[in-house]
Every structure is written in structure tokens, then in C-alpha cells.
């Protein structure tokens, strides 16, 4: 607790994987400044200040360093809120995310639920109309949002909530990010690049990505071809609603996901299956967020189940031998 450690350590402990995640997220974040104006950047600064402060207070109490994971939480959090959200709501969200999503569980490495999503779920339920009813249309023109503080046009619906106008034009807009939506979830192609980089660097688990994608495509396919999911086809569902962001950056969060490889398969499948189900049937069509939180909730059980399974197999082999 005291002497040696306390005084001369730097304030922040930087971890290599965390840095990589931030690098991977940066292009998409930059793109959203282009699409939604400079307000996004200010939001980013505000969220970072309050996120850092929340963790710092706890770290100070325990005489520890602030782990760089808090910045990953901040990055992700900015990317999953609407660009026009009032600043103070974002502050409520990030403080909740860091304090109740992470620090109360013992800080970095101990959190059960993904902090950024916990914070988002909290403000999503609390300030529903601000989180779902006021999406900004991207600023048009060559300079985009670079000459604007905040977008002019507000629309009450994203594609996820209406399911209209899905076609080739939509695919292209979704791919580049020229659609209304949360700050960072719009530019699918940049998220995809960042995500693949993370998987290559082995920061994000390949198993989870593959199985989540499989579960999602199969379920969405079933719902789409039986006509239950409206005209929401496979490409549209992958490109929109923060699926990319959730898939590469949140489902794969090494702390809140199971540790066991077999458990990761179940975990991925669970998220993949639940996402379209919640999107289609729930009144809160926030599939990815709720699916990941639910998966987090059962994560420890999945780990235990996988361990048990292995034990049994081993004992069987022993008997056979």
C-alpha cells in the first residue's frame, strides 16, 4: 500500500493492447467528426475528462495508477452515443460506466460487464427520447462537418428503427458512414479495417468474431426469409446499428468475455443469435447492446460449463485408457 510504490510511478499505466484498440478506433472517430461536425470532438474531450476523473478518484483512494483501459472505455462510449446528445447526459453516462461498470467490481480486469455498454444502457433507458429520437443527418458537401459545429438536420429515426429504403444506395452510405446514427457506428468500412487489424494483432479474439458473425447471419437469415424481420436483409443488418463496433470492439473485450476457448464459441453464438432477435421483437431495438450485456451476465457460467465439460472428457479418456 505505502512507501516504495506510491510516489514515483507515472499517473497512467499504458498497456500495449489498449493502445492498439485506440489506434484501431481512431479512423472511425475521425470520420465521424467529418460527418457530424466539431461538436463530436468536444464531446470526446468532455467524456475523456470525466471518465478519467472517475477512475482517478478510485485509483487515488487505493494508491494505484489509472489504467489506460479507461481511455478505451471513453473512446467506445463516445462512439456509441448520438452526436447531438447534451453534454451533461454524456457525463452521467461515462461516470456511471466507469464507477458502476468497472470500479465497484475492483477496477481494471475485474469488471463483469462491458463498462462502455453499461454506461450506455443506463442513459439509454434513462433518457430514452434523447438516445433514440434525435439522430443527426450527416452534414453534406465536400468539407462535411469540418466547417460545422453540429449538424443541422435532425431525424427521428435510423434505418434500424424503420427498416425502410434499404438498397444499394443504402449499402454504400452505410459502408462509408454517410448515414444517421451514433457517433462512431456509422462508418462500417473504417470499423471493419480497425477490427481486422485488432484480430490480426490478436487483441480481439478470432473465435468470438467468427461465431458471433455466424450466429447473427443464420438467425437474421431465418428471420428475413420467413418475413419476420421485414425488409432488413443480411447486408443491411451487418452494416448498421453498431454491429461492426460491437462485434470487433465490445463483444471481444478480453475482460468481460469468457476466457475459455470453448466458452467463447457459446458466448459468440449467444450474442449472434440474440442480436437479431432483440432487434426484431423488442420495443428497444438495441440488439447488440442488450445481447452483449446478457452474454456478459452469463459469461462466468459459460466459462464454468466449459471447464466442467473438459473435466468430464478427461475422465472419460482416463477410463478408456
Amino acid at each position, binding site marked *: 500500500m505505502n512507501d516504495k510504490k506510491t510516489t514515483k510511478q507515472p499517473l497512467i499505466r499504458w498497456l500495449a493492447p489498449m493502445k492498439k484498440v485506440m489506434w484501431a478506433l481512431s479512423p472511425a472517430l475521425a470520420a465521424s467528426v467529418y460527418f457530424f461536425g466539431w461538436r463530436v470532438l468536444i464531446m470526446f474531450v468532455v467524456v475523456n475528462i470525466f471518465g478519467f476523473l472517475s477512475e482517478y478518484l478510485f485509483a487515488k483512494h487505493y494508491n494505484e495508477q489509472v489504467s489506460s483501459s479507461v481511455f478505451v472505455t471513453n473512446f467506445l462510449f463516445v462512439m456509441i452515443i448520438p452526436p447531438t446528445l447534451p453534454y451533461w447526459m454524456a457525463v452521467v453516462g461515462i461516470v456511471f460506466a466507469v464507477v458502476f461498470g468497472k470500479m465497484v467490481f475492483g477496477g481494471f480486469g475485474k469488471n463483469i460487464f462491458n463498462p462502455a455498454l453499461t454506461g450506455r444502457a443506463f442513459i439509454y433507458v434513462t433518457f*430514452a*427520447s434523447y438516445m433514440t*429520437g434525435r439522430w443527426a443527418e450527416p452534414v453534406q458537401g465536400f468539407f462535411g462537418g469540418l466547417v460545422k459545429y453540429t449538424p443541422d438536420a435532425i431525424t427521428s429515426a435510423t434505418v434500424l428503427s424503420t427498416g425502410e429504403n434499404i438498397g444499394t444506395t443504402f449499402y454504400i452510405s452505410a459502408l462509408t458512414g454517410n448515414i444517421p446514427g451514433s457517433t462512431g457506428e456509422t462508418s462500417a468500412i473504417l470499423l471493419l479495417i480497425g477490427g481486422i487489424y485488432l484480430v490480426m494483432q490478436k487483441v480481439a479474439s478470432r473465435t468470438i468474431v467468427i461465431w458471433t458473425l455466424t450466429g447473427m447471419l443464420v438467425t437474421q437469415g431465418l428471420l428475413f426469409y420467413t418475413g419476420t424481420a421485414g425488409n432488413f436483409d443480411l447486408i443491411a443488418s451487418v452494416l448498421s446499428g453498431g454491429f461492426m463496433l460491437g462485434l470487433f470492439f465490445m463483444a471481444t473485450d478480453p475482460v468481460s468475455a469468457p476466457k475459455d476457448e470453448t466458452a467463447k464459441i457459446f458466448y459468440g453464438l449467444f450474442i449472434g443469435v440474440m442480436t437479431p432477435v432483440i432487434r426484431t421483437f423488442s420495443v428497444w431495438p438495441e440488439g447488440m447492446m442488450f445481447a452483449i450485456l446478457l452474454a456478459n451476465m452469463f459469461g462466468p457460467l459459460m466459462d464454468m460449463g466449459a471447464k466442467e465439460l473438459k473435466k468430464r472428457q478427461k475422465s472419460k479418456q482416463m477410463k478408456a485408457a
Partner: protein
Amino acid sequence: MEKKSKTAFRIRMVLFMFSVTFVFVVILSFVHLYTRSLVTRNENLFLKRSVLYSAGLSVPESAEELDNFFSENITESQGTGEYPHYISKNNGIVVYTVNGAGLWGVITAHVGFDSQTGKMTGIDFVKHNETPGLGARIDEDWFREQFRGKKGPFTYVPEGEEANENQFDAITGATGTSKAVKDIVNKATAVYNATEKSE
């Protein structure tokens, strides 16, 4: 010896349980019988108040006035249509008793219509099992009052907009109940339209 005491113990146990139960049941039955007339009277008054409220008429405070006012102004009619309704003598107002499936069970409501304009005179919920503080907020004034003078079929007020003639504000956090209410008022409107035409 041991066996005997065991049986004795068991008998004592049963007797004890029996006597305690007996005493309490007697006391409770007494209280129940004593208050029963009061309870039925309360229910009756509640029903009358509810009918007057949804007919958009004034609701007298004291019980006696209420009884008189009710019998002067309202006739109960089981007659036409599958829904029991009440008719206000002088004002041409019809109040229907309509059921609908709520989140946790049946919601029964009185829905009143002015037969001259076809507009709603009011709504009141007689019986429901919605969650206190959430769905049960349908009993609050702001919710019931917003229906007066409006015309079905209804939809929700879109977020951040003013209500127009056939929209109403849903209750935050009580999606199921709000939908049930929407169904009930629309059903009542349909019943009203059907019976009006046939007459």
C-alpha cells in the same frame, strides 16, 4: 414411554396450531363481516363516481349527493350491443364498460362519448392490475384528462410533438399498459360507432 410422549407431542402440536388458527379466523371473520357493508358501499360509490367522471359530468363529494345525482342523471342499460353501458338522460352521453388485456390481467374501463359530436367525454379505469408507479399511472389525472374531447381511433403522440385530436401521450416505461389503453379506447370507439349507426 417414548412413543407415547411423541404422540402426545404431536397431538399438542396439532391442537395448538388448530386453536391459534381458530382464534385468528374468528377475529378476522368478525372484522370482515363488520366492514363488509362498508366495503361494498365503497365499491358502489367508486363505480358511480367513475361513470360520472367518464361522462364528463361533475362528481359530487358526499356519498348521498352522489347517489341522488347519479340516479337523477344516469340510467343503466344492459340493452343493445354486447357491452353494458350507461346513458346520461339529458346530455346524450353514452358510457361504455370495455375490457382489454393489460400487461398483467384484464383492464376494465368506462369510456364516455358525446353522441352529438362523437367525441370522447372521458375515460376512467375501474379495475386493473398494472404495476404500481408504472402502468398504474393510468389512474393519474394527466393521463385520463388528455382523452376528453378527442376522437378515436387513437395513436401515440410522437416524441417531442404536440398532441393532435386523435393522439395521446403514452406512459414512459410502461409500454405494455400504454398499448392496452390504446386498444381499449379504440375498441370503445368501434363499439360506439357500431351501435350509433344501428340506432
